[in-house]
């Protein structure tokens, strides 16, 4: 499978098509077969973009770069997550040029979870720069063809300048702070060069609405492609755990009570997710970002439902190529 010259996700976003990105967590062992199997079974034909996490929650896993390349081999489009937690600017740029050479065209720039929460809490957290600086660095590679040092990107002195045409993403947490302050930060990310935003899982539409209004006030709902996050809860316990132990998660008590009271928790989880999707589709969002945490088998059904509902609101979309094409 030869990688595309530029991002298909970018083309879809540019054309105003509805996109569905799905998060994929690489395995905790050197096992490519595990990724291939999951991609073919759950992601192929469903995801416009496969978001490959970079040791999320500071838990050691296979690298995002490697798993993203497997996505390309399987005919899927990866969105490589890149965090500032484990690498300084040398490591980050090395990862970026490696990714570009391997055909990866989308990068999601994150600060990263602190090592304190992970499986190696005694490791040195790097945080050489923050996510806004990382976005600016990638954006400069794109616009000027220069590294962070100011050096031009060329194979040799006589060869052509290489401008890596990245599609740059950023993360947004619409909750937990004054919406206006959050929008100010997102405006910085936009100016630094972010093209799209993926948000933390949304459960509280009222809070999301306040954030959206603050984004609207700055015109950011137009100048950034926003993909709100949806995390279908599999059970009440998992949801409670996320509320208390996962940083940046905002889950209203009403949602937890609803999951506790449900006879069939999984059916209820799907219903909650789809109700949220319906309400989010009322906003001019560019797509949905799905987090199938510990529940990848739900992707095909949920993806079809989300697409169907998006189509009902008049949104257009491409069919996603199945595996191995």
């Amino acid at each position, binding site marked *: 499978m030869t990688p595309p010259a530029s991002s298909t996700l970018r083309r879809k976003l540019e054309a105003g098509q509805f996109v569905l990105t799905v998060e994929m967590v690489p395995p905790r062992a050197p096992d490519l077969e595990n990724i291939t199997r999951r991609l073919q079974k759950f992601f192929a034909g469903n995801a416009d973009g496969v978001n490959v996490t970079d040791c999320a929650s500071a838990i050691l896993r296979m690298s995002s770069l490697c798993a993203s390349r497997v996505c390309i081999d399987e005919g899927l489009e990866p969105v490589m997550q890149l965090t500032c937690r484990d690498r300084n600017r040398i490591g980050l740029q090395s990862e970026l040029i490696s990714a570009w050479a391997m055909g990866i065209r989308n990068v999601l720039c*994150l600060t990263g979870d602190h090592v304190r929460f992970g499986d190696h809490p005694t490791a040195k957290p790097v945080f*050489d720069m*923050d996510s806004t*600086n990382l976005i*600016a660095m990638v954006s400069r590679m794109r616009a000027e063809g220069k590294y962070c040092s100011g050096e031009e990107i060329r194979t040799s002195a006589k060869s*052509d300048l290489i401008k890596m045409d990245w599609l740059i993403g950023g993360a947004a947490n619409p909750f937990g702070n004054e919406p206006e302050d959050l929008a*100010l930060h997102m405006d910085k990310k936009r100016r630094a*060069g972010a093209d799209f935003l993926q948000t933390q899982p949304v459960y509280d539409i009222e809070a999301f609405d306040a954030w959206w209004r603050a984004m609207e006030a700055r015109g950011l709902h137009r100048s950034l492609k926003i993909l709100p996050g949806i995390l279908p809860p599999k059970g009440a316990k998992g949801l409670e755990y996320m509320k208390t132990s996962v940083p940046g998660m905002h889950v209203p008590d009403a949602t937890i009570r609803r999951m506790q009271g449900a006879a069939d928790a999984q059916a209820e989880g799907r219903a909650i997710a789809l109700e949220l999707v319906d309400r989010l589709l009322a906003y001019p969002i560019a797509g949905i970002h799905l987090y199938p945490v510990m529940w990848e088998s739900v992707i095909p059904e949920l993806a079809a439902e989300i697409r169907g509902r998006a189509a009902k609101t008049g949104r257009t979309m491409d069919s996603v190529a199945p595996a191995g094409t």
Partner: protein
Amino acid sequence: MFHQIKHRGLLYRIWYYVERRIKELMFDCHMCGQCVVRSTALTCPMQCPKQMRNGPCGGSMDGQCEVFPERRCIWTQIHRRSRRFEWMRRKLAGIQPAIDWSLFGSSAWLNIWPEKKIALGGHAFTPAPVPSGNIWDRPDAGAPAPTADGSAAQSNPEAGR
């Protein structure tokens, strides 16, 4: 993190400790050697466990820090304080460049003068330019045509700060 003070002479060290005591009392200073408190509502962003200089991380919830939940999030505090004065809010909108770690553990005051390593704002005299805006503003910005001579037309040195 190696503190630059460890390879300096006695006079520098004396100055450093005086400056450090003053700034610790005022800002809970970390002696990053490139003070930007004027751009961050007179509040030191280095108190953030992730050393975020542009805004809160995604884990900041209800004013509390993600890493140490018993601590307040310094970025919530910076934003709150910035509401007091219009100039604070205005300065906060600027993008802070990545930290110069080669200055960490040195005197920011001496770095401004006489060492002239940083400008008054706490940044390098010629910080790396931030290309302004994304591809939706400038569809040509990321055009993949790698031509050496046509590159000047596309570069946009307009810094965000």
